[in-house]
């Protein structure tokens, strides 16, 4: 595996999100507030099975959970 973040179970987009969050946080205060608004995400999602909508979940926490799972999966294999 060529990339450390890939080994940690992150997708490229997640890696981008983390990197951009770090950049935004290191900005000066006045710029930072405007920039951090661009990084906000309040999506909710639901999985569908056989035409039925499942439970609504927060995307951010679900993404983190899925990636943590992927990481442990790769660690064990």
């Amino acid at each position: 595996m060529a990339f450390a973040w890939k080994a940690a179970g992150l997708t490229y987009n997640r890696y981008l999100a983390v990197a951009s969050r770090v950049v935004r946080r290191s900005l000066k205060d006045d710029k930072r507030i405007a920039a951090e608004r661009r990084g906000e995400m309040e999506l909710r999602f639901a999985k569908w099975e056989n035409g039925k909508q499942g439970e609504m979940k927060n995307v951010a926490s679900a993404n983190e959970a899925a990636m943590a799972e992927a990481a442990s999966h790769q660690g064990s294999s």
Partner: protein
Amino acid sequence: MMLSRAARPALRAGAAAAARPAALNAPNAATYATLREIEDRLKSIRNIEKITKTMKIVASTKLTRAQKAMTESRSYGQTSNTVFEKAETKPLDGEGKKTLVVVCSSDKGLCGGIHSGLSRKVRRILAEKPDWDLVIVGEKCKAQLGRSSGKNIQLSFAGVGKDVPTFADASAIADQISLLPTDYASVQIIYNKFLNAQSYEAVDVEAFSEEAIAQSPNFAAFEIDDDVLSNLREYALANALYWALAEGHACEQSARRNAMDNASKNAGDMINKFQILFNRTRQAVITGELVEIITGAAASEEG
């Protein structure tokens, strides 16, 4: 959409009210009630007009921001597309593999037929390829497509369309899509293309799978390690989604502006009509009263 539904009963009632005074003028006591009825209806239409006017102004301001975000996001999407154009990437003929359709609508209504246009296009695609899977962004298309083809839906997202979509939104959606268990031959993103302030069109943009990229005829023009390819694919998907979301958002705002403009105009027409009706009825009532008084006076003089 909700407004037109709310306005229609009032229209029907308005037509009924226009027919009623003639019928009800004979028993004179009823005229007062109709007068008040007309007044009440006038008031409520005026309120609706106020609401739609305000919504139009809000949509106009949001539209300028949305358009700016759209032109910015367009360069993202187009740059990412140039890579595939140069590599001459074509969608794979998916043998046994499904294509995923991502529908980019939003949570809010009151903006004309913009969501149903998307739903119609998706239904047309599903009529040809009934086994393709759907991912739906936004409550409106979810409600429409959930009824007709709920079995195809894999994921649905809510919470978009409040503000200009961010790249964080797009990449989170892209992540969820790449986490889906099924391996898709390609991903089609359906969104409303912004033609001008008056018109939009439901179109699709393709995001390719790794094999499709790897098998593109001019792939050798780029130096890409195999490891990086999946990153490129994820990133391209997020780019395309961001583009689609931003453009769809701009379309929605412009459509809402137009819808609210029309609603305000209709409300203005109705106010005029009711004002005339109100004045006529008021005069009829006064004339009626005068006739009563004069006949009463004449009768008492005689007696």
